[in-house]
C-alpha cells in the first residue's frame, strides 16, 4: 500500500476487530482513508464492509451485542476513546443509508432537523439558507423548491436518497459515509447520485460501500476489497481494477465469485 506524500490521511483504522456476540465479523482491519477522496469498499455480501463503515461513526454502538476492538483515528484522535462524545462525532461524520430513510416530516424539516438540534442556525433566515444550500449541493433544490412543506416520504426513491444526502451535509460534516446508497434505485437515479458524489468530494471525504463494481470504478479514487471479514487489498481504484496484487481480488472483480 503506497502512501502518496501529497495526501493527508483523514481516517486511520488500526487492528479493528468486530464481534457480534461470539461471531467475529472483522479481523484486524488496517486501512487509511484520505481527505477529499472517494473511497469505495467492495466485496461479496456479508464480508464486513458495511460493518466497517459503521465503525467510523460508531453506529454499531446501537447494536447491543456488537463489540469493537482496536482503534479508529479521525484526524489523529481515536474515536473509541472513553471521553469521545458520540453526538459530536456524528456531527463530524454523516451517514447515508442503503434504503432512503427520510423522516416522515416535510422536506424542509428533514433538512432543518440536524442544524436545529446542533444550534447551527441562529434564526429562521439562516435556517432557510442552510436548507437551500444543502438541497442545492444535493442537486435536489430545483425539483423541490416549490414544495418544501410536502412530506419527504412523498418523493421518488432517487429524490429521497438525495434528500438524505442533503440531510447529511446540512450539518457540514467532514466525512460522509454511504452504505450502498444506490442499491434501491433505478439506473437514472443512480447516475444522478454518482454525479453528486463526484461533485461532493471537493468538500467532503466520502466512504462508499457498494455492490456494484462499475460504480466503485466510476466514482472512487481508492478501493478496498473485503472478503470474509478481512481487508484483502486496498489501493488506487485504477490499480485495483486493472492490476490487483491478489488473485482473490482479481477473481472477484472479473466476476468469478461473489
Amino acid at each position: 500500500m503506497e502512501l502518496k506524500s501529497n495526501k493527508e490521511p483523514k481516517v486511520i483504522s488500526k487492528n479493528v476487530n468486530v464481534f457480534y456476540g461470539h461471531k467475529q465479523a472483522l479481523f484486524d482491519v488496517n486501512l487509511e482513508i484520505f481527505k477529499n477522496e472517494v473511497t469505495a469498499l467492495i466485496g461479496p455480501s456479508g464480508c464486513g464492509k458495511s460493518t466497517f463503515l459503521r465503525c467510523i461513526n460508531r453506529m454499531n454502538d446501537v447494536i447491543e451485542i456488537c463489540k469493537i476492538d482496536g482503534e479508529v483515528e479521525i484526524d489523529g484522535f481515536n474515536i473509541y476513546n472513553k471521553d469521545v462524545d458520540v453526538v459530536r462525532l456524528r456531527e463530524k461524520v454523516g451517514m447515508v443509508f442503503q434504503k432512503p430513510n427520510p423522516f416522515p416530516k416535510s422536506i424542509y424539516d428533514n433538512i432543518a432537523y440536524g442544524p436545529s438540534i446542533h444550534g447551527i442556525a441562529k434564526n429562521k433566515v439562516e435556517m432557510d439558507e442552510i436548507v437551500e444550500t444543502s438541497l442545492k449541493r444535493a442537486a435536489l433544490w430545483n425539483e423541490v423548491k416549490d414544495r418544501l412543506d410536502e412530506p419527504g416520504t412523498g418523493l421518488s426513491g432517487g429524490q429521497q436518497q438525495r434528500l438524505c444526502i442533503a440531510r447529511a451535509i446540512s450539518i457540514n460534516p467532514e466525512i460522509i459515509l454511504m452504505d450502498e446508497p444506490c442499491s434501491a434505485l433505478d439506473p437514472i437515479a443512480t447516475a444522478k447520485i454518482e454525479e453528486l458524489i463526484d461533485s461532493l468530494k471537493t468538500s467532503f471525504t466520502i466512504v462508499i460501500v457498494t455492490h456494484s463494481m462499475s460504480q466503485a470504478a466510476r466514482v472512487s479514487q481508492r478501493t478496498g476489497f473485503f472478503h470474509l471479514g478481512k481487508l484483502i487489498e486496498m489501493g488506487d481504484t485504477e490499480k485495483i481494477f486493472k492490476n490487483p496484487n491478489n488473485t482473490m481480488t482479481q477473481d472477484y472483480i472479473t466476476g468469478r465469485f461473489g
Partner: protein
Amino acid sequence: MNKEQRRKKRYQAEKRFQAYGIVAISLALFFVGLLVFKVFSDGTSAFSRTMIKVPITFDADKLGITNINDKDEVENADYFTLVYEQFIKSYPYSNDKEEKQIIKLLSPDYEFEAKNYFLKNKDKLGKTVSLLLTASDDFDQLHKGNFPRNIPEERRRLSNYQLGIYDQFLKEGKIEKIFNNYLFSKGDSRDPELAGFGGAILGSFFSILVCLLISFPIALAAAVYLEEFAPKNKLTDLIEININNLAAVPSIVFGLLGLGVLLNVFELPRSTALVGGITLALMTLPRIIIPARASLKAVPPSIREGALAVGASRVQTVFHHVVPLAMPGTLSGTIIGLAQALGETAPLLLIGMVAFVVEIPGSPLDPSASLPVQVYLWSESAERGFVEKTSATIMMLLGFLIVMNSLAVYARQKFERKWN
C-alpha cells in the same frame, strides 16, 4: 379419484367454508341485534316522564307569606300542605285510606316542584296556575303501559280506586308525557321517577379522568424505557412477562388492592372517583403499555438510524422521532384501555362506589356512583321503574363506549394517513 372429481371436491370445500363463515357472522350479528333490541325496547320509555296537570292557587295565607320580598319566608313557606290540599280535591274520596291513595299518585317531590316553580314566578302569588307535577312511579308505569290492568287487585300495585282516578284524569286530559330531564340531571333516588344517572355520568367522568391522568404518562414512560433504553436481559424479560400477565389479572383483584392499600393504608376517602380512578389506572396500565410498546416497536429502525446519523442523542431520537410516530397506535390503545375501564364494575364495588349517592359529585373527592355500578344497583331494585332506568343507563354506557372506540379508530386513521 380423477382430476375432474378432485377439482369439484375442492370447489365444494371452498363453498362449504364460506357457508360456515356466513353462519358464524349471522349468529354474531343476531346476538348483537338481540342485545340492542332488548336494551332499547326496555330503555326508551325511561326518557319520558308522566306528569299530572294540577291547578294550584298560590294562596298567600295558606303559604304563610306576608312579604313576597322576604327571601326566608318564601323559602320556608308550606308548599307541602298547599299542594296536598288542592290535589286531593281533584277526585272525590270518602275516607282517609282513599285520600292517601290519591296523594300517592304524585311523586313525593311535589312540594319542591311547586316551590321551585313559585321561586321563579313570584308574581303568581294569589293566582291559580295549572302546574305539571311528576306522577309517582306506579302511575308513570301504568301510563307507559308497563302495568297490566287485568290481573286481580291484590296483585296490582294500583288499586281499582286509583285506576278509576287514572281513567278520570285521562279523560280530562290531565296527564302529559314530557322529556325526562331528571334522568340526566339527578343522582340516585329511592323513587324511580326521581332517579337519574347524572351523578353516575359525572362519577364515571371523574374516574376516567383520574385514570387517564395517572395511567397514560406512567404507561408511556414505562413503554418508552422498556422499548428504547432498557438493556435486554433476564430482568427485562421478566418484567415484560409480568406486564402481560398483569393485563390478564381479573379486575376484582385490583379492587381488592384498592380497598386494602388506598382505603385502608392511605386512608383516601371511600366511594370517591379519586380512589376509583386510581384503582382503574392500576388495571389500565398494562393495557396501555402493551399497545404502546407494540407501536414503538413498529417504528422502522431506519428512522432511528437516520436521526442518530445526523447527531441526535438517543433521547432526542426517541422523543423527536420515535414517540411521535408511535403516538397514533399508543393513543388508540389508550382510548380502548379507558373504554374498558369505563365499563368496569367489579373493582368499583370493592372500593365503595356502590354506595347510594343522591348528591351530584362536584369533584373527584366527592362520593359518587359510576355508570356500570349504577346499572348494577338499579338492576337489583324491585320497582318496575328501575327496569327501564337500568336499560337507559346501559344505552348511555354503550353510547360512550361507541364514541370512545370511534375516537380511537379516528385517531389512528387521521394521524397515520398524514404521511402515506
